[in-house]
């Protein structure tokens, strides 16, 4: 009987498919976007939860291009209080979850979310200033066009046509080991 179970275990192990922990999905102006970047955004719910993997990648490409463009203009960091307030809102969306475990699953440091939020603030300020002359509807369209022009100027090289499936965000609520 024991031998049978050992055989079962061995066979189970032998047939286990290796998991892809990380890989490069796309290179944007020499800067890589990885599978772990997508996983982090999904685990931390930093983009709409219903977005598919490809949508997340496209959003990350756009964000990377806008932030790179902003670096030319030295957009200042927001006030720490503003970042803290938005972080509280983000925490509310993860009510009951252990933040340390969340960051570990996302594969990021604890200050990743603060940096993300600060960049979001800077991005909003920058876009607000750049397209200040337009009303809300036209601004959205103008921003889309502008990002499209950034894409045209950029060198975007996909490294893989099909994205390996990323693990969906864990459900809200207490986590279990």
């Amino acid at each position, binding site marked *: *009987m024991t*031998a*049978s179970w050992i*055989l*079962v275990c061995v*066979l*189970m*192990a*032998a*047939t*286990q*498919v*290796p*998991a*892809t*922990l*990380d*890989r*490069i999905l796309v290179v944007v102006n*020499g*800067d*890589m976007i*990885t599978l*772990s*970047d997508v*996983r982090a955004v999904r685990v931390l719910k930093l983009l709409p939860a219903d977005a598919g993997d490809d949508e997340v990648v496209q959003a990350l490409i756009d964000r990377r291009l806008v*932030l790179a463009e902003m*670096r030319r203009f*030295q957009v*200042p*960091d927001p006030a720490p209080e503003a970042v803290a307030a938005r972080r509280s809102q983000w925490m509310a969306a993860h009510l009951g979850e252990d933040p340390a475990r969340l960051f*570990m*699953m*996302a*594969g*990021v*440091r604890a*200050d*990743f979310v*603060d*940096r993300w939020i600060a*960049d979001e603030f800077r991005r909003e300020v920058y876009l607000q200033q750049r397209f200040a002359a337009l009303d809300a509807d036209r601004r959205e369209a103008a921003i889309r066009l502008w990002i499209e022009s950034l894409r045209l100027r950029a060198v975007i090289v996909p*490294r*893989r046509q099909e994205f390996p499936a990323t*693990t969906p965000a*864990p459900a809200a609520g207490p986590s279990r080991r």
Partner: protein
Amino acid sequence: MRHLAVAVIVVWAVVGLPGPARAQQATDVMALAGQPVAAIAIEIEGRPEASPVLRELLEVRVGDPLQFERVRESVAHLFNLGQFEDVAVTALPGPDGVRLVFALTPLHPIDRIEFRGSLGLDRRTLERGVLEQFGGRASAARLDAARETVTRMLVDEGYSRPSVVPSLEQTHEVHRSTLVITVDAGPRLRIGRVIVTGEHPLPAADVTTNLGLIRGAAYRRLATEVALRGVAERLRGMRYYEASASHFATPAGNDLVDVTVTIDTGPLVHIVVVGDPLPGGGQDEWIPIRRENSADDDLLEDSAFRIRQALQRDGFWRADVVHERVEEPDGARMVVTFTIRCGLRYQLASIAVTGHSHFTESDIRAMLQLREGEWFVETQVEARLGALLGAYAFAGFDATLEYTADALPGAEGRVALRVDIVEGPLRVVSGVSIIGAAQIPGTEVRRVVRSMAGQPLQTAQVRDDRQAIQQLYLDRGFQSVVVDARHPTEAPFEIVYEIREGTQTIVDHLIVVGNRRVSTETILAEVVLRPGAPFGQAARLESQRRLADLAIFRRISITAANEGRADGHVDVIVQVEEAPATTIGYGGGLEFGRRLRTAVGGGEEDALRFAPRGFLELGRRNLFGGNRSATLFTRVSLGSRNDPGDPTRDGRGIEFSEYRVTGSYRSPRAFGSRIDSVLSATAERAIRTSFTFVRRSANAEALHRPSAHTSVFGRYALDSTELYDTRIPEDDQPLIDRLFPQIRLSAISGGLVWDRRDDLLDPTAGGLMSIDGEVAARSLGSEVGFVKVFAQALGFRRLTRINRVVIGGRVQVGIARGFSREVLIPGTDGETEIVADLPAGRRFFAGGSTTVRGFQQDRLGVPGVISERGYSSGGNGVVVLNGEVRTQLWTDIALVGFVDGGNVFARAGDMSIGDLRGAAGVGIRYRSPLGPLRLDVGFKFDRRIVSGKRERGWEFHVSIGEVF
């Protein structure tokens, strides 16, 4: 039996399950987080790789709990190496932990371009076209762009429907790709009929022949366009400045095209100038339509503007220049008329200044540099008033001013200038605050701020302070720092510098890419950035400068990868492109001239000299993986024989008359030290008018720079020269002895230089001190022994109150002593004497353009050093003193006054201040692209009797570069 049943079930479960069901065995990634790492493997294209360099870049370690974040960092480091297009990490759980595999897919850069198929054009032409598209680098080639380029080239040459298919063929032993471009050019279009339309003055046959438009010839669209541009250019040269020429092709069946050429000459352009004459210079200079081959409106408008400006600079304040184009109705001729009205020439009649109290009127007049009676040039007045505002700002006033220039009544042009100044209150800084300095202590930030409480508020200084703070932060790696400077517009004037520091960028890994022969260690030795230290701007630029100084790289860039990480850590990529390791230079020449040769009947005669010569230089850099280089230079010359003792051979026939072979080896940072070393050896033979010399020398040099301003050097030199076939005039003998000492010298020398001059060619501040010594001894293999020390100090200072004046001074002192040796007395029967002389080449000389300028070159010395005929044999002691005042007259011209003193003494012990001879004089400097061109005239303080005659009282010198 039951066991067998279980096994069958398990095997069925694993093997027999349909695919999707089996996929459910896939490992849950999230479940792996925190499990111990049992093993790490690296694979390149499926093959195990054990490179320690790659392992070093991994942030995950065996035995540590698995952290996704560290996996991601490892992927980033590997990707930043620039050698892999993909990095994938897989994990397989096991009983003892997770086994990780980093699977790397290498980049396969293109290193060759290959063309296959029916090309239509020459293979090299196509390859050149593709490489030009990518800056000459095959590695930068892209498939789609290569296809477009080749297609365009073929279409331009008449292949209307080419098929161009690019593809990559990879090799995996060495990760490289060949860009294979398969071409089917297809049929080529040929010219059917040629129709030329439009009237023009060029011969019709000339046009079609020059265009290459011949029935049946290949139709080359681009070449035709280029030729047509030449036609238009020729017409513009005939004053048809609006000429154009174009063509189009229409299909005529059977791969033929009819070509229609249209030539439109446009009108013949005439320029007419009416009214007053142009300023000095010809019409072509002011209205350069002939030179520019164009008569467009921009050029005509520019011409009118420049003429108007030139007239106004000459005082024609109200000058007016207009131009008008009038085309004749038939369009055959166009007349451009420039009308010039100079008006009166205005002088500055009076200058009135009001509202000033801080500066006196004479101060203001001095700053404006305007005088009554000079021509009135309004642009000059505005520039000077701008400078006056600057002076007020420097003094702490936010002054404003207005000026009026009124033409005075009368037949003569006279202008009254009135300047109304509103000085405002003196603004004094009440305090300086620094806000936001957290990661750099405020006290440290304050040290770079020069504005201080109690000083006048200077907006320029505030701006400089802001930049200094910003630079401090940039040098500490705060790349997104923002510094604002503000102060109120009314008292109290407290200056506030507000800093938003942003994230400090820290070097995580230093990754060197692109090096093939130069070792990574050699490169990193020059990089002053360090892992864990800030990615500062100054350190980055200094690293780039040091790498550039190695002179072994074509391109160098130091950039940060994966910027934007929350903790500010970045991989710093040091990317280099190595220059070719081997360099070859060669050349040749021909020398014609006349030379003396021994005549067959006795005496000497002139003969033609014909000497072909050539040189070859071989260089090899990057030796042994470091910045070491070796060069071999050879030069050889064929010439007529040189044999003064044999009139039948001298000047006749051909021999290898001259040669020079020099080998050198340069090793910066020799043996891992900070000492740069050079070894060199030379052998040469050369023929001069009155002698032939053979010289052999070897040198070993070492140089160390302990700081940016200090250098220490040491040198060993072995030198031996022999003269042959001499027919040297007696007067030239001392100079020949000096330049070609016919003895073997083996000497060790060393020195120390401290240099703080602000400009090596034209210093205005700072100083230099140096001391060097040399010892030659028979124990070192020298035929004579001596010791020699030479020291100098020089300094410069810009007079603060008068910016254009620089004073400078120099002191030079040299002493030497020969070691005693026994020599045979000529003409005696073996009698000897003890001498302690120096070889002529090591003695001191003075007088001339770089020492004491009242004397001819090397004609200064005490009696005994200077012969009766006035020639110097050199001495064992020298003193030279110089003082100069340099005044900038105009941008490139300076006037110099100088006082020089000095003398050369037979023995160091004879040196005496009382025996110095002096001279004073003036000089002119012209700042040329080569350095200051110099003309000095020096006058002796005292004139003495030499060769029975009184010395000339003055000397002049023309030279390049300052005296000191």
